[in-house]
């Protein structure tokens, strides 16, 4: 229908060419807090996250007629955000100089109960050392509660790739948090 980022497997949609009901601002707004949480955890700072979410909202509105099944709005927005993020990363590849995650780590530590603060701070810092791919798969499955299939749709990957990436990400994070040697988990995935 368009070359918009559309989750793979949107087959259940009827092959009709008539656009569905247009999505209203408030439909999208309802997803913004969640998109923003995901984006902040993914990029490691609020500023880039807000830019990303804003771009995502703009792009979704500009293409609001492309989404035929309103019940898929959440996944569709996540896909758009993911694709925008990938293009931002490509553009930035040679620039380096990202906003350090320390500020977010301190910030989130202060939002946590006092007894959890040190743990939260260490966790956010360790999480920030993962690759973006690893962060994305951990967040989608672990925090956003997406199934493997839904995560695969957002990331536009085969399910098997999502599972092996998740296994690698968890192990990498475990070593960052606990130390020790990394297990070759993916060799054992099948």
């Amino acid at each position, binding site marked *: 229908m368009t070359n918009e980022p559309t989750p793979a497997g949107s087959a259940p949609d009827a092959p009709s060419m008539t656009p569905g009901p247009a999505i209203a601002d*408030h439909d999208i707004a309802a997803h913004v807090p969640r998109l*923003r*949480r995901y984006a902040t955890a993914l990029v490691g700072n609020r500023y880039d996250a*807000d830019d990303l979410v804003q771009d995502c909202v*703009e792009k979704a509105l500009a293409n609001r007629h492309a989404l035929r099944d309103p019940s898929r709005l959440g996944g569709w927005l996540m896909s758009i955000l993911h694709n925008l993020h990938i293009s931002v990363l490509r553009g930035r590849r040679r620039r380096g100089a990202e906003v350090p995650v320390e500020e977010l780590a301190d910030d989130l530590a202060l939002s*946590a109960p006092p007894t959890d603060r040190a743990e939260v701070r260490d966790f956010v810092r360790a999480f920030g050392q993962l690759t973006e791919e690893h962060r994305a798969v951990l967040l989608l499955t672990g*925090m956003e509660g997406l199934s493997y299939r839904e995560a695969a749709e957002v990331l536009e990957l085969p399910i098997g790739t999502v599972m092996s990436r998740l*296994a690698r990400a968890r192990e990498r994070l475990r070593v960052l948090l606990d130390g020790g040697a990394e297990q070759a*988990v993916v060799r054992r995935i*099948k």
Partner: protein
Amino acid sequence: MTTGETHPVTEADLHAWIDGELPDERRAAVERHMADHPDDAQRFERYRAQRALLARSFGPLIDQPLPDRLTPPFAARDAVATGRAGWAGRARVWGLALAASLLLFVAGGATGWVARDRAGGGRQADPLTAAFIADAVAAHRVFTVEVRHPIEVGVDQEAHLVSWLSKRIGRTMRCPKATKSGYELIGGRLLADSDGPVALYMYEDAAGRRITLYIRPTPSPAGTAFRFAQDGGLQALYWQDNGLALAITGDLDRATLSGIAEEVYGALNS
């Protein structure tokens, strides 16, 4: 029990197990595997803990107030997304709006708290000026967003905090609690305004929202009723009592702020 036997348990099974995606018929095999492989059991315990920490660390982000540019109505741009210069401009305007003028009004006894020993009655004679509120609100803005050093002395050194501030302010300063309202004292700092030293106490609730209590000595021993001031998104409630001018500031509704003020007032007069 027999279904899973033919397939050895894979790493993917173990992940599917903690993610709730394992088919029921594989569960027994995986649980047996975990019992037989304590190293795997331990490793997956850590993965579970990771997931809990993920939610605990990033979960609160969902409650963060949204910036203007992320709240509807979104600018009409059905056609083609343009650059974001317009948005940046809007953000700057928003920043300026924060510095907008103060709105002051009297709370008219809404809290049921009545002025004690109120001198005169004319507001002209009142040392609680707009400048006092402006200073209190400015201090709130500057220090509550501070991540590394919101306070100088933490509540873990409460005795030191009290004696230090008392010495500098020249009055017996206590650290009033606001725990009934859900706020914990995190500490305090010494500030200066045009009239001399000021104490600032900071409190935080479980969600990380912060309020401040700004206290300046005044020459007048008179007490006044609570009054509200509003500046941008912030509400301040201020009053005067026992030779101190006090202001509680936060991004809160008035009823909540009144509850906190009454608790603080009670703590200071107990």
